[in-house]
């Protein structure tokens, strides 16, 4: 059976070239980068080389890159680290409802610690309007954090415009670029961001490796205290092989980005075009300003987890933001914030392509997906519509 992995926003396989770059650092060049002898120096050199490669991907200086264990750590670090560092200036933080849990839950932590957080609404495409950001700024605002691109609906946010507003007002601006970095061009100078998070496994690097870009001269309170690693800003013996892998993956992503994007976009457009022929199915996220490899939909009258499992039985791997497919059993807050009804949010399905995806994969998906939908709709009491509202707001199926 054909295997089609269309869940590249969840994670990616390691690129073979990345694997090869990493392997010497497990058993041969295993030294601690802090050690003074040659083994330590070799590890230190490898980390600094990787720092340069990651910096080149986002057009920063190498000294502005702090390695972390994940994108989530980078997000936690940015929010807490800046809010705490500037609390004497104000205690207001702005994020959007499009953010990843690592931002949302860090923001909730700050609320508990006495900060005021504004969770900005978004439009139907998931866009954070720069004007709304501007209006939500108060004298107390010290930090704005808006995602670069949503892994759930693919929408790319107007980061440059928001960055300009933040700069005008003298507010620190962070973007969670975990879904963007390595997949679309990301230039910290052009975007005007002060901090930016990324994760290696989003661009064929290893899991367990992330980075936070912190603009030169910006003070940040550490998340992890200890030794002098990362200039005292992130303690803990460095995960040398993973960092080397992240560097190599960043280098490859930079070199191959244009080709990867072009191929993904072509396949994604074919996918969206093919799927749009199915009745009662809607694209989620922005139709144009979206990640090149991302196609997300809501399918009416059926549920996402059931779709996922039937697709997986056909060798097609996808994701869903339905309540049933989440561990918390809650519908995707991102879809709800975009005004998608909770019934429809249940039918969420996300296909994210990768550099290994082929035309044949898309053909296979377009052959199988409509059958999965048909099968589940035949089972659904709502196949003729959402019915009438009952006393407690429930949908009573039509006879």
């Amino acid at each position, binding site marked *: 059976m054909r295997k089609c992995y269309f869940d590249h926003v969840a994670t990616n396989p390691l690129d073979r070239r990345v694997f090869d770059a990493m392997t010497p650092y497990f058993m041969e060049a295993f030294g601690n980068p802090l050690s003074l002898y040659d083994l330590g120096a070799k590890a230190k050199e490898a980390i600094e080389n990787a720092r340069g490669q990651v910096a080149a991907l986002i057009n920063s200086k190498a000294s502005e890159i702090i390695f972390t264990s994940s994108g989530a750590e980078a997000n936690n670090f940015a929010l807490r680290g800046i809010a705490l560092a500037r609390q004497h200036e104000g205690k207001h933080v702005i994020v959007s409802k499009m953010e990843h849990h690592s931002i949302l839950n860090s923001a909730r932590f700050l609320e508990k610690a006495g900060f005021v957080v504004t969770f900005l609404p978004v439009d139907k495409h998931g866009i954070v309007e720069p004007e709304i950001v501007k209006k939500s700024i108060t004298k107390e605002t010290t930090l704005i954090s808006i995602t670069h691109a949503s892994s759930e609906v693919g929408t790319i946010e107007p980061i440059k415009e928001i960055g300009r507003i933040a700069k005008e007002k003298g507010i620190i601006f962070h973007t969670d670029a975990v879904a963007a970095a390595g997949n679309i061009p990301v230039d910290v100078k052009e975007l005007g961001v002060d901090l930016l998070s990324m994760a290696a496994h989003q661009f064929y690097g290893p899991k367990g490796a992330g980075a936070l870009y912190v603009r030169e001269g910006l003070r940040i309170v550490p998340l992890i205290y200890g030794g002098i690693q990362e200039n005292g800003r992130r303690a803990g013996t460095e995960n040398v092989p993973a960092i080397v892998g992240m560097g190599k993956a960043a280098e490859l992503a930079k070199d191959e980005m244009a080709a990867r994007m072009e191929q993904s976009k072509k396949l994604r457009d074919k996918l969206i075009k093919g799927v749009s022929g199915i009745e009662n199915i809607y694209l989620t996220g922005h139709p144009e300003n979206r990640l090149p490899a991302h196609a997300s939909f809501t399918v009416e*009258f*059926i*549920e996402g*987890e*059931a779709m996922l*499992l*039937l697709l997986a*039985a056909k060798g097609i791997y996808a994701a869903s933001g*339905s*309540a*049933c*497919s989440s*561990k918390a*059993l809650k*519908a995707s807050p991102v879809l709800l914030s975009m005004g998608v*009804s*909770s*019934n429809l949010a*249940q039918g969420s399905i996300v296909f994210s392509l990768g550099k290994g995806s082929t035309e044949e994969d898309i053909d296979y998906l377009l052959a199988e997906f409509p059958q999965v939908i048909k099968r589940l709709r*035949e*089972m*659904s*009491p*709502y196949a003729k519509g*959402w019915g009438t509202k009952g006393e*407690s*707001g*429930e*949908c*009573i*199926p039509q006879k």
Partner: protein
Amino acid sequence: MYTAKVMDHFTNPRNVGEIPDADGIGTEGNPTCGDVMQIFIKVKDDRIIDVKFKTFGCGAAIAVSSMITELVKGKTIDEALAISKETVANELGGLPAQKMHCSNLGADALKKAIEDYRSKKK
């Protein structure tokens, strides 16, 4: 995540559909937060002679629906009423903890269908 039995009932559900001249119909659940199950029963001489279901929901919800229709077919009304959520879950070899509450709606939908049948009989 799911047992082989759950996957079997989910991928090859038994008794899917509607009974146009059903003696009782029961609906349970809400699509805004989870699953919805609709059960149709045909009763003769106090015995459930036919049963069908329609379900909106996840793999567990569909498997539960399929399983309960198998369990009640041919049973008397009293025997059918004795089937609990636990019975259904056990017959499926267990359900993930978080699915026990929201997806295990079969027994409740069945009870509603029986109530509907009884209210029509009066």
